């Protein structure tokens, strides 16, 4: 029996053999892992299991998963969750993106897709009501993201119109794709969609590239999956939107107002590779973007009234023709202040460039900022790079982004992501790894999102990255191992947007989950059982890590060294992250989740969560 909210079927695609099959999950598995991040972690455990530490993220055997959840498309703010063994953290990241692809998959009758193997030639995967098919992508390989989307929209619409010409106008498909960065295995590359959206964390763009898979396109004509209690769902849907519409700052500005205030107010914005976190540059203010670039100030993804997106276009000047969203706060910071760029137009340009090349707009520029600091310190020279890499030099960063995407010159090393690039540069320069890692702002290989911990005035505190199974991912920060289970872990598994959860109450959200699925779920059941089950399994796989890097318990459960340096400027000058507090809170976090003092899940915990089969693999980590 299929529970409410599930289309029921999954697609299993073996790209090596060109084989497409369907499979289903037992009712209990769906109840235990729900969808998205949860079900993806379960798939990874089942398919890879004890071979985890020897599996390279870019090996054909690595399952690449596109997972929706039972609330996707029904609860406001549809997203999809991409996962697999992350070639960045060597663990599991549930990396979500807002895209109609999630909805089209479900209306075509599928909850998700698992890709394994590697196609001999570039291909894309098309999903329709008639199933999934592997199609040639020779003509798309090498194209940037924008051109890929334009071509796919036309090609797939024409194809479907030809196949079924008598049903009226065919709407364009929804698509997810990679750019040159993913194709060339830039380790932290994104899977992109809708020109300016991306599943950025985890490096799944490079996993897609490693499989010769350029894109996924989907078009369904069915309804969204039927639900357990339709009348209740209809009422809750109306209520949820009432809640979303109370989020007026986001409706008006998106996160675009934070580019100024996270620096000026909370002193937690990355500036010049996090050397500072305070600025008072009014050029980064929201009016500078809104008044000059926003051509649509209320732009929404599927079933969303928070409409935090705003379409930006540069109409004049050097970067004429650039199209992106706001940029949102993360990209204002990472494609702006963190590169020493305080000009809105230059910021829009670097953001657009990330979208086009298929870099993750957070992770790619984190590495560029890292390189610029090494240049500032004389560790990387003009000779190493090929030109001067000064802060605020937009042309220079434009050039570097291309070199990374195409793995040219120093770009080949930087394409390994900040952590691995640090190790390689240390080797190249004959320096100790610590001397290079001290400037690398990453946790477990994942470059940290644009919210610092030193001022303690942002939502990101002490151990929020240090303890997270998704490292530097700012959308999955931890608080206490209890309340976060019914937030990020739930949103990524249900799969919907964390911003449409702002406004509606948590009670409403969980009532909605219950009305959709019919599962007896509550906030408590997520905090005490389902959430911990997912995170504990993620933790076990992260501990196993490998093959190139493993993270040492305790030692690597920490912030980047920079987060312990005193803030050099601003109202919180001198303040820094309290190391004792970090240690104390990590211990409390481990305890809450039933992990030992080194963060290894105990046997009792594993047994209690139905993960007894994981226990033997944890033995070697216990002292």
């Amino acid at each position, binding site marked *: 029996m299929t529970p409410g909210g599930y289309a029921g079927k999954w697609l299993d695609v073996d790209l090596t053999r060109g084989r497409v099959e369907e499979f289903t999950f037992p009712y209990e598995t769906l109840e235990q892992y729900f969808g998205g991040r949860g079900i993806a972690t379960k798939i990874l455990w089942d398919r890879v299991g004890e071979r985890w530490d020897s599996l390279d993220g870019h090996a054909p055997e690595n399952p690449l998963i596109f997972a929706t959840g039972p609330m996707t*498309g*029904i609860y406001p703010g549809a997203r999809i969750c991409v996962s697999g063994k992350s070639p960045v953290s060597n663990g599991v990241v549930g990396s979500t993106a807002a895209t*109609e692809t999630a*909805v089209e998959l479900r*209306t075509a009758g599928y909850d998700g897709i698992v890709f394994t193997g590697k196609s001999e030639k570039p291909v894309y995967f098309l999903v329709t*009501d008639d199933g999934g098919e592997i199609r040639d992508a020779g003509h798309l390989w090498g194209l940037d993201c*924008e051109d890929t*989307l*334009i*071509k796919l*929209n*036309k090609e797939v619409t024409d194809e479907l119109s030809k196949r079924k010409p*008598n*049903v*009226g*106008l065919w*709407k*364009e498909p929804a698509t997810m794709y990679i750019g040159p960065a993913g194709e060339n295995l830039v380790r932290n590359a994104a899977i992109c969609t*809708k*020109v*300016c959206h991306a599943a950025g964390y985890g490096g799944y763009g490079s996993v897609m590239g490693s499989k010769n898979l350029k894109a996924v396109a989907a078009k*369904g*004509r*069915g*309804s*969204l999956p*039927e*639900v357990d209690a*339709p009348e209740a769902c*209809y009422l809750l*849907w109306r209520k949820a*939107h009432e809640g979303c*519409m109370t989020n007026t700052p986001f*409706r008006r500005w998106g996160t675009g107002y934070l580019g100024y205030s996270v620096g000026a107010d909370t002193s937690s914005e990355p500036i010049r590779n996090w050397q500072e976190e305070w600025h008072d540059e009014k050029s980064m203010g929201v009016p500078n973007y809104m008044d000059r670039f926003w*051509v*649509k100030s*209320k*732009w*929404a*993804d*599927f*079933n*969303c*009234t928070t*409409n935090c997106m705003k*379409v930006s*276009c540069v*109409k004049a000047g050097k970067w*004429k*023709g650039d*199209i992106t969203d706001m940029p949102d706060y993360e990209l204002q910071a990472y494609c702006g202040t963190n590169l020493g760029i305080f000009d809105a137009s230059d910021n829009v340009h670097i953001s657009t460039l990330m979208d086009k090349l298929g870099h993750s707009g957070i992770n790619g520029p984190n590495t560029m900022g890292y390189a610029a600091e090494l240049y500032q310190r004389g560790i990387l020279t003009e000779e190493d790079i090929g030109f001067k890499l000064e802060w605020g030099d937009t042309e220079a960063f434009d050039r570097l982004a291309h070199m990374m995407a195409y793995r040219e010159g120093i770009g080949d090393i930087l394409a390994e992501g900040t952590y691995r690039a640090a190790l390689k540069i240390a080797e190249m320069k004959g320096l100790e790894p610590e001397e290079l890692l001290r400037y690398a702002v990453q946790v477990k290989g994942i470059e940290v999102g644009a919210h610092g911990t030193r001022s303690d005035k942002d939502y990101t505190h002490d151990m929020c990255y240090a303890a997270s199974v998704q490292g530097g991912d700012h959308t999955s920060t931890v608080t206490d191992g209890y309340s976060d289970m019914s937030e990020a872990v739930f949103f990524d598994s249900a799969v919907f947007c964390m911003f449409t959860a702002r406004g509606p109450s948590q009670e409403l959200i969980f009532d909605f989950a219950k009305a959709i699925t019919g599962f007896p779920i509550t906030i408590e059941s997520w905090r005490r059982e389902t959430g911990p089950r997912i995170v504990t399994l993620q933790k076990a796989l992260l501990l196993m890590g490998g093959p190139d890097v493993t993270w040492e318990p305790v030692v690597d459960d920490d912030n980047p060294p920079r987060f312990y340096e005193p803030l050099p400027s601003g109202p919180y000058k001198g303040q820094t992250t309290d190391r004792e507090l970090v240690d104390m809170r990590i211990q409390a976090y481990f305890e809450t989740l039933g992990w030992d003092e080194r963060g290894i899940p105990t046997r009792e915990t594993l047994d209690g969560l139905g993960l007894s089969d994981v226990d033997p693999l944890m033995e070697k980590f216990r002292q």
Partner: protein
Amino acid sequence: MVDPIWIARDPSACSGCRRCELACSIHHEGWMWPEASRVRIFMPFPGLEVPHLCSQCMDYPCVESCPVDALSVDPTYGAVIVDREKCNSCGNCIKACPGTVPFMHPGDNKATICDLCGGEPKCVEVCTEAGYNALTIVNEGPNINRKLYSRNPVDTARDLAVKFFGEKGLEVIE
């Protein structure tokens, strides 16, 4: 017509949230079914969202084209009403429409056209309450301009592209 209404449309104001599709299909189908919605939002390029729905042309070419008299004009509001029993799925109405608006229902393969929800269109309700006003109700009788809004949505998007993106807009739809 007793009490004619029209859904005025402004694609540049459409957020692309597609709640109109959900509200329409909940009303007509009992559940969320975007492709069965009588209003469909096309997005040939992100940012260019175009509501596609019947504009009640004054001469109703779709009604004229139906060989089995399955289509008629509702005398109160002026909507095109489909008799699903009579419809033989021939597709003439789709071809007759200057904007190719009617489509075959993905469930029963019968012609599907906006019926103005008996005077209170659900799509307009959700669009208005969200403050987008891409779809608004006007109490206006039939006029010759309505037909101009019965347009291929990709053509509309091409115009929007230039309005939003300037010269670059010429390149974003193949």
